[in-house]
């Protein structure tokens, strides 16, 4: 690109001034609360609806079906939702641009089929097959992104065509519908095995230390420069919440949840949990802390402003589709692991809709410019709780779909209304 003529050292403002003395030195807890309330009023609801919904749903199902709270069910909930959450995380990138990828579900199916065929029919080692599946995802994203960004076909049409096309490719790959079973122990472990209890605690400790270190470094840097920062009490509360929630989750998952210990012990954090956590961390750092992430938001907010700022809009669009399809590949691998096999339905039926629903329910806007990777996780958990809880209550799939669809509609409605609110100002 144009890096040769990018400004090398116009580093100083034109008229340098003593820095810092204009900035308010401290920010109080009250300021933080007031800013938060103002944001809510302005239509920026953030994670509030998803977290609120999650709490309400959990209480609701726990009261009606106490088994909902069992350790076994808790672990199930996480492994059930992981594949769809991975796909939803990818969709966040595309939705942030105001685009859509309707083919992400079947893209995950194609990648899963590639994985299964290479593993089982061709005897590839797990890492090579996984790499091939991921490359397939990247190639799919490159194709879709190029058609949208360079040729200029609306993403709705491109990915609708791809939705049909990939469905066909899965059928062709699987020879008109055979089921390819997976026997590779590493791939099977992803969605079926657990970390040892000690490892679970150790990983949590590493996460907490990393988060604390990042936050402290940031806030001490800001304080040193006299920039307004987050008060230590709010910081401490945030870190405390992570410790308590993470600690409770690890503790519960480390309990024995086998129905019959004599047959086999079943305890520990499911391996998909650290997989999703790692993707969450990586995705969040990318979107919130890198120039690339900022440009994704900029293109989603105003493509023209981004273009005038010298951002390569087409590159950002294509990259978002590549990321989306790669995360769809991850979702496909998780699904293949969980199902112990791949069939023409892998990534099909409601997979895409649940993933889009997850992102939107979590708070990512369908209009672009607003959303975070964590939305996919929160929304994915809401969707999983609805499916799981209603299943426990004995409702049929039909009712579950109808309810999930209504929740998606409510979330999209909240999105549209909050957008109208922020546009009106």
């Amino acid at each position, binding site marked *: 690109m144009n890096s040769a003529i990018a400004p090398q050292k116009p580093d100083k*403002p034109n008229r340098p001034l003593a*820095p810092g003395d204009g900035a308010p030195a401290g920010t109080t807890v009250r300021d933080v609360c007031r800013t938060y309330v*103002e944001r809510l009023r302005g239509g920026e609801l953030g994670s509030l609806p998803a977290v609120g919904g999650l709490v309400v749903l959990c209480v609701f199902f726990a009261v009606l079906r106490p088994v909902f709270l069992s350790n076994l069910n808790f672990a199930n909930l996480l492994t059930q939702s992981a594949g769809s959450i991975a796909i939803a995380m990818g969709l966040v990138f595309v939705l942030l641009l105001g685009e859509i990828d309707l083919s992400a579900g079947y893209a995950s199916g194609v990648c899963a089929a590639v994985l299964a065929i290479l593993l089982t029919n061709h005897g590839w080692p797990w890492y090579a097959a996984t790499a091939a599946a991921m490359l397939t995802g990247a190639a799919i994203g490159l194709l879709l992104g190029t058609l949208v960004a360079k040729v200029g076909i609306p993403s709705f049409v491109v990915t609708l065509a791809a939705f049909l096309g990939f469905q066909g490719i899965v059928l062709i790959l699987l020879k008109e519908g055979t089921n390819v079973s997976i026997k590779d122990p590493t791939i099977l472990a992803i969605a079926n095995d657990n970390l040892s209890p000690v490892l679970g605690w150790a990983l949590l400790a590493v996460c907490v230390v990393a988060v604390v270190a990042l936050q402290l470094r940031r806030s001490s840097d800001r304080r040193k*420069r006299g920039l307004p920062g987050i008060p230590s009490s709010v910081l401490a509360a945030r870190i405390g919440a992570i410790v308590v929630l993470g600690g409770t989750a690890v503790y519960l998952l480390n309990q024995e949840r086998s129905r019959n210990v004599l047959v086999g012990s079943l305890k520990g954090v499911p391996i998909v949990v650290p997989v999703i956590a790692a993707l969450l961390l990586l995705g969040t750092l990318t979107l919130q802390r890198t120039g690339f992430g900022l440009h994704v938001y900029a293109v989603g*907010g105003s493509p023209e402003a981004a273009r*005038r700022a010298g951002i390569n809009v087409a590159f950002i669009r294509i990259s978002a589709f590549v990321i989306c399809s790669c995360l769809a590949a991850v979702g496909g691998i998780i699904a293949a692991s969980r199902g112990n096999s791949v069939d023409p339905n892998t990534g099909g039926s409601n997979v895409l809709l649940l993933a889009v629903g997850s992102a939107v329910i979590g708070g990512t806007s369908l209009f672009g410019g607003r959303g975070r990777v964590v939305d996919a996780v929160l929304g994915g958990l809401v969707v999983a709780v609805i499916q799981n809880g209603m299943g426990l209550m004995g409702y049929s799939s039909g009712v579950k779909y109808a309810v999930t669809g209504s929740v998606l509609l409510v979330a999209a409605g909240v999105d549209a209304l909050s957008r109208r609110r*922020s546009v009106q100002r």
Partner: protein
Amino acid sequence: MTRTPILELRGIDKSFGAVQVLHDVALSAYAGEVTALVGDNGAGKSTLVKCIGGIHPIDAGDYLFEGRPVQVHSPRDAAELGVEIVYQDLALCDNLDIVQNMFLGREKRRGAFLDDSTMEEMAAATLKGLSVRTVKSLRQKVSSLSGGQRQTVAIAKAVLWNSKLVILDEPTAALGVAQTAQVLELVRRLADNGLAVVLISHNMNDVFAVSDRIAALYLGRMAAQVTTSDVTHAQVVELITSGRSGDLGLTTTANGAAA
């Protein structure tokens, strides 16, 4: 006048398809001066500015910067020269905060990550240098700002860099009286700080209040470039509406060709 202008355009032509919007346009802008670019709606002022900023390629003509001929094909090329433009449609991202907008496309980085603290510091210093006290927090989203505040952010964005030429396209068009006065004061301060400033405006009071020179565009042609103290309101209005005023302005042949 033997000073070299910061910006000198000669013989600029620009068409959109079959429609020629700019005909043989010349324009000069000098350091420390405000050059007002005036003209009726549709005269081609915004188009000229977009050509200067590298948004539209020019069809023909010379683009000289500090006396050297240059090629400007993209906004980055213009920024590299030290040309900053505050567009009529402000070109801010509503979903980003003030600091993010000011540094968009030219972020400070520390390793792989953004250096938010440095950017916020520089943004605060720039706003302070422009005596801007109207924004509460640099981390508020642009969607929550008033029209005047947005304009201020857009101008601050333009002077954040070592810019030599700042062009403002109708910066006061959407503002109230008090905010207009503030923005004009800001414009004058930019020139007093040694920048070349081109100000597009419809308002004669604004033009005569801050400008050193006036360039009048009429139907895509440069009718005249004059020193502000040499002309009256009425003469400038005539240049805008008919392309000529007494011995100033376009000759009839050029005028006829445009019609």
